[in-house]
């Protein structure tokens, strides 16, 4: 017997590629350290998740909703530091985060 798939209407959901493996990612996924909302949901200011409310990857390995972090950096009290570890915030481009593999930067530090 030969089975030919003519058409497959599949259902999937997307996740941000934070570089972590699926196992450590867990089912629930990580939350933004600022707004405590899941990465795949959107920051409090946004209404639509995904490309309209992207993540921002820090050199310090911390990931936030971009809007959340920019807002934080915008406040005087922030001193342009990562809110998690008070290191000076440096942005890692998503491209870099993806191509180098975020886990690598994790293990580096």
């Amino acid at each position, binding site marked *: 017997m030969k089975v030919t*798939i003519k058409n497959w209407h599949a*259902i999937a959901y997307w996740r941000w590629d934070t570089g972590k493996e699926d196992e450590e990612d867990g089912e629930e996924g990580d939350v933004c350290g600022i707004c405590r909302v899941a990465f795949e949901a959107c920051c409090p200011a946004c209404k639509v998740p995904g490309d309209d409310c992207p993540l921002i990857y820090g050199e310090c390995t911390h990931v936030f909703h971009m809007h959340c972090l920019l807002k934080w950096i915008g406040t005087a009290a922030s001193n342009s530091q990562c809110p998690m570890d008070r290191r000076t915030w440096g942005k890692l481009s998503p491209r870099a985060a993806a191509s180098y593999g975020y886990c690598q930067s994790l293990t580096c530090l």
Partner: protein
Amino acid sequence: MATSALRTQVSVKYAESLEKLLAADKEKRLNPGLLNYSQALTLASEYLRPYDIKDRAAMMRPRTAFNINDVRTAFAMVHFSHQLPALTEIFLEDMRKSFHLIEYEINAYMTRYEINGCRRLRETKNLELFRMLVSRLHDWFKAWHPPTECASPDSPSQTHTDVIPPSLSSFFSGTYTLSFQTRLFAALPPSFARGFKALASWCLAPEDYPPMVSASGAPIKIDAVWTEFEKLGLIERYESVISSVAYEHIERRIEETCPNNWAVPMLPEIREWMTQKVVPWMLKIFTHGVTSRHDTQSLLTGIGARFDFHVNKVLCDLRIKEIFNIIVDYPDSLGALQDLKETLQRVDQRGDLVKFLRKENNKRLLHPGADTQTILQQYVSTIKCLRIVDPPGVLLYKVANPIRQYLRERPDTIRCIVGSLVGDDESGDSLVDDDEPIQPLQQPESEDYGDLEWNPEPIDAGPEFKTNKPSDVISTLVSIYDSKDLFVKELQVLLAQRLLAIDDNDTARVDKERRNIEILKIRFGDAALQVCAVMLKDMTDSKRTDDHIQGQTPSVVHPTVISHHFWPTLDQSDIVMPGQFQQMQEDYAKQFSVFKPDKKLKWLPHLGTVHLELELQDRTLDVDVPPLEAAFIELFSQKDTWSLEELIKAVGNVDRSAAVKALSTWTNMGVIKEQNENTFVLLEQAEDGAEMREMAPIQAAPSLPPVQTVQQQEAEQMRVHWKFIEGMLTNLGSLSLDRIQTMLRFSPNYDKTAEQLGYFLEAARREGLLVVQNGMWRLNK
């Protein structure tokens, strides 16, 4: 010992008597032919004495036996000697003595009448008999009536006309009439009223009776009889009987024309019938003896108003009895509603309407046998109907409350409402009219003190009642529940189910859903439906992404990629798609990551549908199946024989029942068969009867995507909370409800009230998990 005062009195009396005698003397001189006062009195009373009209000789007496001039003189004398009361007394006494003659005659007629009974055939005859009795009575009345001439002594006493009071005649005849009537009424047997009624009824609707003809065959004019009735004072006496005839006719008319006739208002028609039939009849009966136009008018308005009231009342009663069915028939029953509205304004039956409709609703609607959809439909109709009958909505408020309470208890109410909101394809008639303007949900507003159009609440409004502007149906339905969140949640579930079922290229259906959601946004507000908007956006984004990826590397996989935080919880599954399926998934995921470098795809492999072509040795099958089925058949393409356990293991971990169900799909199609227990084998060549099966439409159970319903989600959540409660009680022994509530508030997503928690704990107690003592809860060990 006579005092001087007494003495004066006596002398005055004496003078008076003397004067009287002198006056009598003067009379004598005036009428020398006449003897004296006592003779005059005798003559006059003799003249007036009632006689038996059956006696011919006596009948002629007034004309023959008396010299009319003598009689007149005698009357004048009696009058001038102020003895008229005495004469009247004698006359009435005479009448009393002779009245047995009339009684005898009445009895004779009535006995014949009663023997005939009420049989229909005899009715005409009876009526005739009755009519004869009445005219006979009238004859008696006329015969005994004091002749008018007796009181008008004209020619011989011309000189005294000025002193004879003109009221003499009327005084006499008045007294006579009164006394005659009194005696007559006492003499009439109860069956007389019946006869009277029959006659009145005949007169109102002669067509109901056989034509009335006299013995000679000529039709009888019955109208005259009413004049006789009037003269005898019977109309007044039997007015209630006449009214009852009219009432019965009204009732019968309504009974005949109105029940189940709801399309047009019947009230105007019945009023028309009243003017054509009842009013002329009323005129005939009541207007005898009333001369002035003004009197007639006032008389008729009084009686007419009573009849009109009766029309209203009877019709109102009828419509109230029919109200449930009228509501069922809405909008084909607008006429009946109009009737009800108008009659309720005349008749105070609003309480009855509410009571009856509530009873009827309890009996016919609010029971487990009725569909929620049906109840909602009826509720919506009730709203519309009662808004017509009573625009302020007091009736509605009273009737609707039990329905709303009942609906609140039904588990699937929200789903039904939401289903009809989005225009579910299955349910034929939608709750909402298409032409109803879409408007935002109305929130209960605080009272506007500056409202110039303000009116007080209707008098029968309860304290809870709030006048509100007529709101649209959806607002009313949504307001059954305290918050609209429940609706939004249910809406998400429904939308998720429908969206996931949509095949990739079917943009029309997505557009339809989008239109629905846009409409609902107007009602529920943008914010509440934001989640739904995201779901729809996912649909279009998936399409766009897919188009792009297909452009790069064509694939048969067309996934819908969802933002799972914005979708209702989907059932989890651990299926691993075997063989080529897995390969395709991986390829596609890779392409996706290339297109969206910062995202990755996670498959929900148990959802969706697969369109397959199976090439077997002797046949080719073209089927649409769920993924699990596809996975199994893929496995069979690797090896012909599989046991159930092997299959389950090969696709990861699936529910045994789900696996059996998937396999039975294929067995039904004749592709595999169960050889031994739990061992399945592929049928490369169709077995006998396989064609038969093929004939049957191949339909792979297109079950709705397993989206968790709101209840399931809540149960899921409660399970989490239960873990907390269990932990708390294990550590702390026993706790009060308030403590548990306070502590639970710290846990994420906890939004229950203390009351809801109480219900939950109570349920757990019934399950035997908890015990409660003095308000302290602890685990049941």
